[in-house]
């Protein structure tokens, strides 16, 4: 794990000239692979809906109008209306912000928690490694969605707790990657050089190790975003977290579920499709990002 490994490990962050090469490579991947290009476009579209959604929609997502309740899609209501006559298109678009926010915050939280403790575990080894390892083993011993249910039930039924629960169940994944990547670099040439020039361990962790494993962590973030969205939507589908009438995809599918057996398909279909597209987008984007960062692991 010492001198033998060092030649196999790549050098420190590439110099500034490498940046334009990376960008060129990124453009090549986005334009070269139609699927990645498509998912990138979809991602931009989702971002626009999340940022400007409330200004784009034709109707107030909360306004009820029983005169037009349960109407199938038409020119006035492109996605139809629900049992209270609310416009589904408006609700689906406005919901983007909440769903994306839950996913982004939970992924950011687990990135910080799992990333830092994983790097520390891989770099220091010993007790740090054992404690972090035991913690993530315990989380892994649970079926993850079930654990998330338990956490939200115990902490209380709020959106913040959904974010926390989603972060906790993704923790072992981030720890494993950060730990493995930090471990192979702990005695790399550039780390030894930094140590020799008198940098403290924490400083080495943050300025030498972290930047080097960032690309791989970014790929992981994109891949887990989809899972985070599914998880949050699943929790609200069973009645945890978001409460009606707040527009949120999971809860909208739950509201539409009762009408499926009587043939009113549009109430559940459109929020479900939005959910699927968002998850699909992040899964494909993650695969595309991995091709940029780690060409050897293409699948």
């Amino acid at each position, binding site marked *: 794990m010492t001198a033998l490994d060092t030649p196999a490990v790549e050098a420190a962050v590439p110099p500034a000239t490498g940046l334009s090469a990376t960008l060129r490579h990124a453009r090549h991947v986005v334009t070269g692979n139609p699927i990645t290009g498509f998912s990138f476009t979809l991602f931009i579209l989702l971002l626009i809906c999340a940022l400007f959604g409330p200004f784009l929609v034709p109707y107030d997502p909360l306004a009820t109008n029983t005169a037009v309740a349960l109407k199938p899609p038409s020119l006035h209501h492109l996605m139809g209306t629900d049992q209270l006559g609310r416009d589904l298109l408006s609700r689906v678009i406005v919901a983007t912000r909440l769903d994306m926010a839950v996913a982004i915050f939970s992924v950011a939280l687990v990135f910080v928690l799992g990333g830092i403790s994983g790097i520390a575990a891989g770099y220091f080894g010993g007790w740090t490694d054992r404690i972090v390892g035991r913690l993530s083993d315990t989380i892994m011993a649970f079926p993850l969605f*079930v654990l998330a249910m338990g956490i939200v039930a115990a902490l209380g039924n709020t959106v913040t707790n959904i974010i926390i629960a989603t972060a906790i169940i993704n923790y072992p994944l981030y720890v494993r990657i950060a730990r493995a990547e930090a471990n192979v670099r702990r005695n790399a040439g550039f780390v030894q050089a930094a140590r020799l020039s008198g940098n403290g361990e924490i400083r080495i962790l943050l300025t030498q190790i972290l930047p080097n494993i960032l690309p791989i962590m970014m790929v992981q973030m994109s891949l887990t975003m989809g899972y985070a969205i599914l998880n949050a*939507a699943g929790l609200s589908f069973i009645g945890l977290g978001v409460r009606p009438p707040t527009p949120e995809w999971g809860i909208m599918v739950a509201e539409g579920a009762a009408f499926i057996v009587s043939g009113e398909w549009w109430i559940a279909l459109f929020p479900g499709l939005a*959910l699927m597209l968002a998850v699909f987008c992040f899964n494909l984007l993650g695969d595309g990002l991995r091709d940029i960062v780690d060409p050897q692991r293409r699948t």
Partner: protein
Amino acid sequence: MRSIVLKRLATAIPSLLGVIVVSFLLTRVLPGDTASYFAGPAATPEAIAEVRKQLGLDKGLPEQFARYAVDLVHGNLGNSLTTGQPVVTEIANRLPASGELTLLGLLIALSTAVPLGILAAVHEGSWIDHLCRVIVTTGVSLPVFFTGLLLVYIFYFQLGWSPAPLGRLDVFYTAPPQVTGFYLIDSLIARDFETFRAAFAQLILPAATLAIFSLAPLARITRGSMLAVMGSDIVRTARASGLTSKTVILTYGFRNAMLPVVTTLGMVFSFLLGANVLVEKVFAWPGIGSYAVEALIASDYAPVQGFVLAMAILYVALNLMIDLLYGVIDPRVRLEA
């Protein structure tokens, strides 16, 4: 072989301890006053203090944990507030329903994903490969509850092929005499083929929903590991010896590619146990998942805690079984252990 089993059992103990501690902490340390909840909204402070004493909540945490552990050893998970029944009996009653659903789902997933993965690997880069990739990515991107509803709409409302999505058996049928608790097996034992057909009709949609969700990891890992094996020396040698491509792919390729697939089964089970909760809600399936959801909505702690614990123990046990399976599939693992 026996020493391996014992050794592996010993490594499962820390996981189990962790699981018990976490499920204890889930309800004791976190905010929310259980005593005032049990005492009801109109309770006086004295009444709340009395309840707290009754529940042992006035004691220190270590002592509370000791009591909890002793209760566990005696198989006592507390009583449900809403039904008044012991949580253990309710979970035991509902477990076969969930088990039957999950296992059939897994069976469907395996019998679809493995051939799909092998096909994709053998024809790498062809349209079959791409199609397989699109199918599995779509499958994993579809929220299970949404897939379930979609299937209900198509097969119940539009085509009318399947019965109403309301539980394990239509009201016109009676459950077969209980032997295993699995309706499919019990009805066969009772030679009641009509009930078998009815139970199967109820079961197939939720099981297919679970299967679609778990296709992706299985198909991907089969493809990846088949690709690795097909490029190896043993396969080249087998080809050079003039064996038919069927023998090469199935006997030489697949047998060697199976180990990573079995490893992934553990993860897939974690997925399935979670997805089970959602699917049971969609299909009004009387399993432990829907039991937990009902309890969650009623803020009934004991069943939720019992459910989390039961699922975790089940999951640890399954992983144990998977590890032991390795030895059966690959004798090299046995030697190393």
